[in-house]
Every structure is written in C-alpha cells, then in structure tokens.
C-alpha cells in the first residue's frame, strides 16, 4: 500500500533545499542580495516544513529509502522513524526561529563574509538533517563530519582574532576525538560482517562484553559532542566565539544531535540496555549538571555563562536518560519509557529556551557591543522587547511553572519517584540522590538567571558610556523587527511546550514505544489536553493551563480589588539608599559579587585567583579569575604527552633523502617477509 504522505522524501527534499540555498548564497549579485534578503527567510520556511514532516513521521510507520549516491557498492541509506521524526521536528522548528533572527542579525555584514556565512550556515543545517536521516554508518559519519567542519568554519567567522582561532581548534580537536570513538563504535557493532547499514547493526547479536565496549565508545564519542564532563572544555570556548545565531544553533540543536546519536545507538542499534550502563550515565550526568551550573554562576561573560548552562542541561538530559536505562535494564519498561520521555522532552525544551537566550544575548551584543555582564545594567529601559523575551527564556530555564523547563524536570522527578519498584536496594536508594542533584541544579539555575537578568536588564547602567546615547544617538537600540520575530517564535515555543505538555507526552510515548517496545502504562492514557498524567491519576497530575488560569485570575483579582477599594496614587522619587548618600551605579552588585555566596559555599571546587585591592588603593579594582580544574588534571597532561610522543616520532624525520630511501627499503623487505 502506498502511504499518503512520505515524510522521508519530503525531509530529504527539505535538506537538499538547504544545500541549494547555501550554494545560491554565494552568488555575489547585487551586494549579495540573495544572501542578505532571501537566504535566511527561505531557510526558515524550509525549517517549518521540516518540522511538519518530522511531526508526520512520528505518527506514520517507519520508512526507508536507498539513494543511488555514495561510493560504488556503498549507497546511502535513509530512514525515518518516530525518533528521527522527533529530532527532525526539533531541528526544523528551532532553526526556523533562529534563521528568522539571523536575517536581521547578519543584515549589516560585508557581502563577502555574508556569502560565506550563508553557505556554511545552510550546509550546517542540512548536515544535521542528514545525521538524523542516515540509516548507515557511512552516511552518518559523512554527515557528522560535515556538521563538525561547517560549524568549525562558522565558529571561526572572526578568524582574525587569535582567541577565536584557538577556540575553533579546540572544538575541532574534541569533535574529532568524539568522531573516532563513534567510528570505532560502529566497527565494534558490525561484528565482522563488514556491512554498515543500521539494519545489520540492529540485528547483530553482540557478546555482552562487546556490547559494553560499544556502549562506552558511543557514550563518550557522542558525549564529546554533547559537552558532558570531562569532554566539555570546547563548549565554553566555542559558543562565545561564534556569532550569536550560530551559538544558538550549536547549543540549541547541534548538541541535541549528539543526544540523538546516543539514543539511536544505545537503545536502537545495540539494544539490550543494561542497568550498569545507566548508572554510569547517571553518575556522569549528575557530575555534568552540577559542574555546569556551578561554573556558570562564576561567569561574567554572558555567552560563556550560557555555554556552561548548556553543559548543565546536557547533564539533566543524561539524568533522565540514565534513569530510563536503569529501569529498562531492571525490566521495568513503563518507568523506563517515562525516563526516556523526560530526557527527550528536556532535549526539545533546552533547544527552545537556550536558542532564545543565545539570541537575546546576541541582541544585547548587537545593540551595546557588550558581553561582560559587569558593564551592563538597566537595559530593560532601552530594550524592552529583548528584555521580555529574555525573561521568558530565563524563567523557562530556571524550571519555573508554568513554562516548559518545569515540565521536563517534573517528569524527571516523577521517574526518580518510581525508584521504589526497583529490586536492587543500592540503586533504589541512589535514584533519589540523583533527583536531589537535579533539585539543587534547578535552584542554582534560578539563582544564576536572577543574576543575569537582574544585572543585565535591571538596575542602573554600570558603564557611563551606556547611560546616555552618544552623539550618533542610536546606541543601545532595541532588537530589530526580524530579530524580535525570531525571539518571539522561540518564546512562544516556551509557552506552548509548557502549557500543552500532554500532546508532546503522547508524541514522545510513540517514540518510546518504537525504541523500547513498550510505552507508558494504561493510566497515562487518561491524559488529555488539560491534565498531564504520566503514570496514573492517583499518583501524579499536573495541569499547567489550570495553573496559569488560576494564577493569572488571582493576580488580576488582587489588582482590581486593590484599585477598587483603595486608590492607584503613585509618586516618584529617588531610590532609597538607607541614609547613605553616595550610592552610585558602581555600588550595585556586579556579576562577580552576585556569585560570592557560591564561591564561599563551593570554594574547593574552583581554581580561583583573586586580586583584592588594598584599603588605601586610590583606584581599587577587584579582579577574579576562575579556572576549570579539568585543564590541569586532564587536558594539559594529555597535551604534554602528545607533544612528547610526537617529538620522539619526529626523530624519524631526518630530512635526508638517503634515510627516506632506507625506510622504503626496510618497508619493502618487511612486506616481502610478512606478506605472501
């Protein structure tokens, strides 16, 4: 029977159209008219289409296709199933908002740079689509590497700055370490057949030891791309280096392709999930979560701070995934499905709100040229729209109801609360501790975003330059129309995902069924658009709509009652300084000051260098430098070892032709001896 719709073919067309747009962006005609005016809006339209096709694919049966492309005897295979459909939806819908924003953001780039950005940007998008569509290891690796390279070029857009070049290099290095591990993982999984289609990998029966090796390779290979510790070091360097829409793409979507890879390989290709794997994922996830948020609290560079929060959120996703693996490993597929749904829900949520926050940071950078929080302040008066969207993103990432971040954390907590069905006493007692980690991280995130929003948007401008518009008069303007539209799209996503969680729950339930063979329990079917019931109605329910209606009603009622029975009289005056007369803008909290309680409580976790000015210093300036300990125990030793080994290997290179001839001769003799 011919299906009515073919999301696979449609998605393929969408991905190829992105490539075409990328190529067309190179056309220099009319001051790069196409790249400036049309490329990004068209890309956004294709993103919307792709989101629709992905949505279809979740509900339709799996489709496969073989392309007459690739190497001889090694054609490309494509496949779309509910999991791929979900990630296509994520890619399409989030990239649509970012592309609209990019239209405004890149408007004033010089033509040459803009053409290159247009090319790389759309190749990047297309390669992510192919990563999700790929159904054999060959196409997967080609798309994976294209993704790494195109994003590398996007990160190094400002390649004239040495700091950005080195950030790009670090990114490329860790991306390739991960790629090697993934390649080896595919090698282990094929188990000697020499056939690399995912169908073969799926049906291969692996010895438990080899399955564990494959799991470890996949976990760390994809983990390097996702930014889990200890392979996160590239993330806080590369995200700030890239232009903001690219940061949003990388943090919002590219990290999620790594989650896609993890789920695809562990649940689908290897299969037979073991609970011990889940414990490892949980341990690393908990470490990543706490590390990310604690280091984020120490940052004063806005984009670096957001990058550390991406590390944290990857940790939260891993916590959900790990719980799911533990439950599946112990033979509780219903609870396992709930954990998987929580993890995937958070994947989507993080893509939406982190994309939004990076775009907000980009608008601030665009308008004021500032990235350092310590120089900002009072931006809400000059950029009210950006402030509103940023506030939505900040509340969402802080997991506050009724926005979307809360729903996925709620589902993760509900998964952890299923711990009592486990037979293993140790694991049962550990799961609530991981939930506690999540609770701590959520509260710390709220603190961090109070800091970001409070310091950047509220208060008074800290640098006098930004207190008043300069001679040109248009400094510190609000974001432009297209930028606002892009942010509004993602902010709407925060509301929709937060207020209508049930439809997404049922969608993800289909993904879980397709992966684990079983979905949520019968009780969950009671879910309707109003009530979210993940397990059964006696156990846990949540209704964001009722929640929102009640809170809005009582707030409005309060407002009306107060106005009705009393009065709305208001007088304006100076702020109250508690009798101190010399409170200037510089006596406000700085970003570093706001993190001081955290430094006090978690001091030993940081590598801190602090300069305290002396009491009689005429121009006192406090400085603080926080470094990542991982550099000293992991990265630098590895780098030194590599240098040492390569210096030894360099001895082979003598630069004299007679020596090289000798090498050839010895090689030839050796081959003659060993090969018959």
């Amino acid at each position, binding site marked *: 029977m011919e299906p009515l719709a073919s999301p696979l073919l449609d998605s393929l067309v969408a991905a190829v159209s992105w490539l075409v747009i990328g190529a067309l962006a190179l056309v220099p005609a009319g001051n790069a008219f196409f790249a400036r005016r049309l490329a990004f809006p068209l890309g956004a339209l294709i993103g919307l289409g792709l989101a629709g096709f992905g949505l279809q694919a979740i509900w339709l049966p799996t489709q496969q296709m073989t392309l007459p492309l690739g190497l001889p005897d090694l054609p490309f295979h494509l496949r779309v199933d509910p999991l791929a459909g979900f990630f296509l939806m994520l890619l399409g819908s989030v990239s649509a908002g970012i592309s609209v924003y990019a239209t405004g953001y890149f408007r004033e780039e010089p033509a040459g740079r803009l053409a290159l950005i247009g090319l790389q940007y759309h190749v990047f998008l297309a390669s992510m689509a192919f990563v999700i569509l790929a159904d054999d290891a060959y196409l997967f690796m080609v798309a994976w590497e294209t993704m790494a390279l195109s994003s590398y070029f996007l990160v190094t857009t400002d390649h004239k700055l040495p700091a950005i070049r080195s950030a790009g290099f670090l990114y490329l290095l860790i991306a390739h370490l991960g790629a090697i591990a993934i390649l080896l993982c595919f090698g282990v999984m094929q188990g000697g057949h020499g056939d690399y289609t995912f169908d073969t990998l799926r049906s291969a029966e692996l010895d438990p030891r080899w399955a564990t090796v494959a799991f470890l390779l996949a976990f760390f290979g994809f983990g390097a791309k996702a930014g889990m510790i200890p392979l996160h070091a590239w993330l806080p360097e590369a995200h700030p280096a890239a232009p903001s829409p690219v940061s949003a793409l990388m943090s919002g979507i590219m990290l999620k392709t790594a989650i896609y890879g993890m789920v695809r390989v562990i649940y689908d290709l290897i299969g037979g999930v073991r609970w011990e794997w889940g414990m490892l994922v949980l341990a690393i996830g908990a470490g990543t979560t706490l590390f990310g948020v604690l280091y984020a609290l120490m940052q004063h560079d806005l984009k670096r701070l957001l990058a550390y929060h991406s590390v944290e959120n990857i940790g939260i996703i891993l916590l959900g995934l790990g719980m799911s693996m533990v439950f599946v490993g112990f033979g509780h597929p219903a609870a396992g499905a709930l954990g998987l749904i929580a993890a995937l829900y958070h994947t989507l949520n993080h893509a939406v709100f982190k994309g939004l926050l990076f775009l907000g940071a980009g608008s601030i950078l665009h308008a004021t040229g500032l990235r350092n929080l310590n120089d900002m302040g009072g931006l809400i008066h000059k950029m009210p729209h950006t402030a509103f969207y940023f506030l939505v993103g900040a509340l969402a990432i802080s997991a506050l109801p009724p926005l979307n971040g809360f729903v996925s954390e709620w589902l993760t907590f509900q998964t952890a609360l299923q711990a009592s069905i486990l037979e293993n006493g140790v694991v049962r007692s550990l799961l609530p501790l991981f939930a506690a980690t999540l609770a701590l991280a959520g509260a710390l995130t709220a603190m961090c975003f109070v800091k970001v929003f409070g310091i950047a948007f509220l208060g008074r401008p800290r640098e006098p330059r930004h207190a008043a518009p300069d001679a040109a008069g248009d400094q510190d303007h609000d974001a432009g129309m297209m930028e606002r539209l892009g942010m509004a799209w993602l902010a709407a996503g925060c509301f929709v995902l937060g207020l209508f969680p049930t439809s997404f729950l049922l969608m993800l339930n289909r993904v879980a069924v397709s992966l684990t063979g079983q979905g949520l329990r019968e009780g969950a079917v009671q879910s309707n658009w109003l009530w979210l019931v993940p397990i059964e109605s006696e156990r846990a329910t949540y209704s964001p709509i009722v929640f929102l209606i009640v809170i809005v009603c009582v707030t409005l009622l309060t407002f009306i009652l107060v106005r009705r029975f009393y009065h709305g009289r208001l007088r304006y005056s100076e*702020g109250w300084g508690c009798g101190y007369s010399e409170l200037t803008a510089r006596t406000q*909290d700085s970003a570093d000051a706001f993190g001081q309680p955290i430094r006090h409580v978690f001091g030993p976790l940081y590598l801190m260098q602090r300069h305290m000015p002396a009491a009689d210093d005429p121009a006192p300036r406090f400085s603080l430098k926080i470094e990542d300990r991982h550099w000293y125990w992991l990265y630098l030793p590895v780098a030194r070892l590599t240098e040492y080994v390569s210096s030894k290997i360099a001895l082979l290179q003598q630069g004299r032709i007679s020596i090289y001839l000798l090498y050839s001769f010895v090689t030839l003799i050796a081959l003659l001896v060993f090969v018959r």
Partner: protein
Amino acid sequence: MIDAPAIAFQILQSVFVVLAAPLLLGWANQCRAWLQNRSAPSILLPYYTLAKLFHKDAVIAHNASAVFRVTPYVMFGCMWLAAGIVPVLATDLPFAPAADIIALVGVFALARVFSALAAMDIGTAFGGLGARREMLIGFLAEPAMLMVLFTAAFISGSTQLNTIVETLGHREFAIDPSLAFAAVAFLMVLLAENARIPIDNPTTHLELTMIHEAMILEYSARHLALIEWAVAIKLFAYMTIGIALFVPWGIAEAGNWGALPLAFAALAAKLAFAGAGLALLETLLAKLRLFLAPEFLSTAFLLGVLGILTHFLARG
C-alpha cells in the same frame, strides 16, 4: 469529576486562608511578646498595618521598571495559589490536582525569583545584596524541601497532596522514623524559607544583616502591603503543609462535609500550637551568621535524604 459544592468549598478555603493568614502572624507576635516579657500588641495588629499601608500613596523610584510594579501582585498571586492547593480543612480540593508538591515548590520558587528581580530593579546596593542572599537561602532550602516532600511521596506512592494526606491520615498513630527525620528537616526549611530566626530576623533594622527586608526596602504603601500579606500567607501555607504531612488527623475526607466543624477546630488548635512554638523558637534561638546558613540547611537536606533512605531500609 468536578462538582459544584467542591468548587465552592475550594474558593471558600482559598479566601479563608488569605483572610486568616495575618491572624496567625499576629498570634505568633503576641506569643513572642509574652515570652519576652513585653506587653503584647493586639492580635489584629497585622490587619491594622495592612489597612494603613493600603491607604498611603505609593512611592517608587524614577527608574523602576515594570518588573518592580508587577512583582507584588505576582507574589501575592503565587502565595494565594499555594494556599489554595494545600489541604487545610478538607482533602476534597478540585484545583489541587493542577499542581502537586513539586509544582508547589515551583510556585514558591517563582515568587522568590520575582522578588529577587524586583530587589535588583532600582539598582541600590542593598537590593542586590538582599537578592543574592535570598537566592542563596533559596537554592539551599529548595532541595531540602523536595527531599522532605519526596519522603512523603515515597510513603504514600503519590506526589499529590490530597492523596498524601489521605494516606498518611489513615495510618495508625505511631512515630515513623522516616517521617521523624523529614519533620525535623521540614521545620528547619520552614524557618529558613519564611525568613525567621535563626536564618533571618523579620524585625531587624540593621540593613547589613537583612535578607528578606533588604529586598523590599524600596517598596511602600499598597505594594508593601501586598508583599507583607503574601509573606503572611506563605507562613500560613508552610504551617499547613507541615500539619498536612505530619499531623493530618482531623482533616475532613472527601465528600464528608459533616466533619468540617471538627476539622476547623483541629486546624485552629494545631495552628495556635504551631504559632506559639514558632514564637518560642524565635525567643530561644539567636540569629546565625549568614555563612552558617549553608550548614544549617545542608543539615536539613541530609535529614531529608536520611528520611528517604530510612523509608527504603524499613521497607526492606
């Protein structure tokens, strides 16, 4: 699923809580005055204060943004919602399924985030200082609170307060070790979250030691009244959560309207006892240094975790 008398009762309970909350505060203040050998103010003093504040003209700073003006209403709305979903008199609350205990913690966090943002809005030194300290207390207290609630959730197999209270209310009167740990942890969280001694001092006039008071220095008149009222509702909500979790006996079950008078009397007695206990604690204890607060609250957190572990151990 939802019937009219239940909804009417839900609305009545919410209004009752909002109106009764300042009374609890007045009672606690009265007890404290007695314990400290002072002549006690009227138990109605909080109402007089609110009325006075509502009649004044509000004064706000020139550079106040919308966040500053919205926050008192948001805080009041959040606390009202919280008070509406805690089973105070009966377990039959039609709105309660909209938000379980995790969402309840989320509501308190939402109010806290807004109050901290408003504190930073004017750009004075004390506002930022208060916001930073409040968030410090918040991130320490929130996980501890969740651990306490998780203990109850594990025991009753549900995260809905209605179900938890019904399950716990039906057990025989015996001290459950896991609930004992949780109760101590909850008491510590209650003191910290409501800005009481030993973490914060609600009657302080020293700006440098303030936490909550430093955040609301900029507020006046009706805005201040709403915040003060919200604070009273928060204390009331926390006390009723504690009553619901640890001494639920006497609450009216679903559909049993005849039990309401008894439930009301039981609640009044428990709250009177709790208010007097709070006053006693505040008289006996001294305020801790700010940087001892993490130790205080991490103790609460550990007690909460011990509660969960004890539950698993006791169950085998």
